[in-house]
């Protein structure tokens, strides 16, 4: 009996690993949950109204049917944002032609990052809407959607060399039904590689 188990163990392992490999196409559902009466419901993206680098309104409707990557940044950020932008540009170069794909970059410094500033930044980075939307808006609304829906960390911070803000370098992957399917470190090349392969699954 003991022997049989020992012999079966490697077999189990193989089946287990194989099921991971072939079942790997299912990405998790990560939205914040809350309890409503007897039900547990997923937090849905709230209504919002932001303005993109072309001065156009971006709201909940703009995201309909899109598989998108959301992030939070600011133009004069000397720390992680340039690294995130460089990595995100690889994602943009890969999927920018797919009309179901979008990157939604929210400024957390709307006082400085006006429509003109965002336009200049996008042009200089060599990217354009509609595939890559840079949005500005009311500061409270941006921060609120960051906390409540995207699970982002954003704080004002006046410590040395921070550029005025402390924030996570998270890239949040949202599917066409508004469900969060992954969070990746935008400063980590391996994780951005994972994001690219997860995007390929959702955009199939």
């Amino acid at each position, binding site marked *: 009996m003991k022997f049989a188990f020992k012999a079966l163990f490697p077999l189990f392992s193989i089946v287990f690993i194989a099921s991971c490999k072939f079942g790997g196409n299912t990405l998790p559902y990560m939205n914040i949950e809350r309890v409503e009466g007897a039900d547990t419901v997923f937090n849905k993206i709230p209504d919002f109204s932001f303005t993109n680098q072309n001065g156009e309104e971006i709201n909940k409707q703009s995201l309909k049917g899109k598989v998108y990557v959301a992030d939070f940044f600011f*133009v*004069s950020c*000397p*720390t*992680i*944002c*340039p*690294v995130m*932008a*460089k990595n995100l540009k690889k994602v943009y170069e890969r999927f920018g032609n797919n009309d179901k794909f979008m990157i939604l970059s929210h400024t957390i410094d709307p006082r400085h990052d006006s429509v003109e500033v965002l336009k*200049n*930044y996008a*042009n*200089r*980075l*060599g990217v354009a809407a509609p595939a890559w939307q840079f949005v500005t808006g009311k500061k409270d609304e941006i921060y609120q959607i960051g906390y409540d829906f995207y699970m982002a960390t954003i704080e004002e911070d006046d410590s*040395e*060399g921070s*550029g005025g803000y402390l924030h996570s370098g998270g890239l949040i992957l949202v599917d066409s039904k508004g469900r969060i399917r992954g969070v990746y470190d935008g400063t980590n090349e391996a994780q951005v590689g994972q994001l690219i392969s997860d995007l390929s699954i959702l955009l199939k």
Partner: protein
Amino acid sequence: MIKTVLVFVFAFVLLAGCNDADRKKQQFISLGRLVYQKQCANCHQDNGNGYEALYPPINQSDYFLANPLNSLCLIVNGAEEPMTVNGKEYNLPMPSFAHLKPDELAKLLTYLSNSWDNDGSFYSEEDVTKTLATCSNK
């Protein structure tokens, strides 16, 4: 045994061959690299070539090479005005790095001057302090 002794003698001769100035310069380059990696490389990149039309190059940059000490005021005060580097205009603001101390700036400047294809100059803490006194404080 003889071999070991020879290796030591050889190493000693090599080290003694470096004069103090060389050693100090090497030290500044190594320590300056750490400052660069932490404070500058996110934008200006490990290769010093900048990134896209967002961040200008420091490697073979006419702006930097014209007078590296002039870049000190820029580093310490940051910049809001557009600048032209190698014939291209850059207009993103550069944040101020006022928290860097004169010795860190001297190491950084020496590293920048000795990296990539730049000109190999050495900058002491005194050079830096003198120049910083001429920067107008914002």
